[in-house]
């Protein structure tokens, strides 16, 4: 048996976990990367770049959106997937539905949104719909999106998103809106990068966190 010597400082300063104890994570949910917006046009997670892992390391990936705040009014939060090349233009078919409720109780709804779902489209998918993310200092959007098995070269790539946000563009009062989006990238090429942006304006503030979910 080989003997390996460690000094106390090296053990104290451990920043990653031995493979025997999970290979870099302390549970099934492994934090991979956090991007913090500061007036950014886009936020991109590219496999192999800046510490991002988005390959067959994990069968499921999860993105968390925390207080996404636009730089201007009229913005919808969007996602695109890269299936080769440099463009985020993987073909997608999706469903979209949403519910909302005015702060003043003036109206509620639960409805499918036919104007922002996609049918074999290469466009970015809206993750917030029907109304736009508010721009008051305390407003924004938070939620999450799950991407299944992006590295598969056999199957389409399913994704599901749920985001709640404040919309203050409608009278007579701000609205709590929750938007559910689900669908698939209809490609058998691996998805190796995901990009988030607003359809208009920049992402003024907010964080997006990428996690891998272990299968064992």
């Amino acid at each position, binding site marked *: 048996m080989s003997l390996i*010597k460690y000094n106390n400082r090296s053990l104290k300063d*451990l920043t990653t976990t031995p493979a025997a104890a999970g290979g870099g994570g*302390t*549970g099934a949910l492994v934090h991979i990367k956090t991007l913090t917006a500061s007036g950014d046009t886009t936020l991109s997670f590219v496999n192999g770049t800046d510490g991002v892992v988005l390959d067959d390391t994990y069968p499921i990936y999860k993105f968390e959106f925390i207080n996404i705040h636009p730089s201007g009014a009229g913005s919808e939060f969007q996602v695109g997937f890269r299936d080769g090349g440099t463009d985020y233009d993987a073909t997608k078919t999706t469903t979209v539905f949403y519910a909302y409720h005015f702060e003043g109780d003036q109206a509620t709804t639960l409805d499918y949104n036919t104007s922002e779902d996609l049918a074999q489209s290469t466009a970015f998918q809206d993750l917030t719909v029907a109304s736009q993310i508010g721009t008051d200092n305390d*407003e924004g959007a938070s939620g999450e999106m799950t991407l299944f098995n992006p590295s598969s070269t056999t199957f389409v790539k399913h994704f599901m998103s749920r985001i*709640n946000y404040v919309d203050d563009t409608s009278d007579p009062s701000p609205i709590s809106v*929750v938007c559910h989006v689900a669908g698939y990238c209809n490609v058998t090429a691996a998805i190796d990068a995901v990009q988030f942006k607003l359809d208009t304006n920049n992402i003024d503030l907010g964080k997006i*966190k990428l996690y891998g979910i272990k299968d064992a």
Partner: protein
Amino acid sequence: MAIRTAVNRALTEITALPTAAALVDGNLTLLKTLTADNSANLTFVNGTNDVVFDNTYEKYVFKFIDTSIRSNTEKLGFNVSIDSGSNYNVAKTSSAFRAHHGEDDSPAALAYYGDDDLAQGTGLQPIQNGGNSDADSCISGELTIFNPSSTTFVKHFIMTTNQNNSSGNSQVLHIAGYANTTSAVDAIIFQSNTGNIDGTIKMYGVGPKQ
């Protein structure tokens, strides 16, 4: 500096993690488990009974495991506090919709559910409605709260629970909204609008410590 000697076998058999590693590795960290047994409420208050509910994590998840109420007229809900639990009365706006399906195959429907939404309401945010006092009846699901310690943004939450309700239906309820405050939220209470509750609620911190 002290020199420690470790054999390779000892390292390969590590099953617990150094504190330093937990600071950077993302995970789902169990913070607290509370179990109600005919209890008036369950509360998670930052700094009390080892509860962490501050800027340590940017996302917290509460999981309801076989949580139940004691009569068919009760409604399980939650509220949040900005003063360490002295008051649970933060204004909240939320939307709610449900799908339900009868054990006898009727009804089967999906619709907005106005009984369980709030419009700047300071009372309990319903988690499920129309309880079921049957011995095998309960509510399971989870509530996520984003960035409760922010002093800039409102506090978004999303929640999904399922129950077998008093009408003999399987009912899934989707609720989402925000606590409309820019003060830090530092406590949460789970209780019924009337009566006591049973069951387990687990609190987790999600992701790397900040």
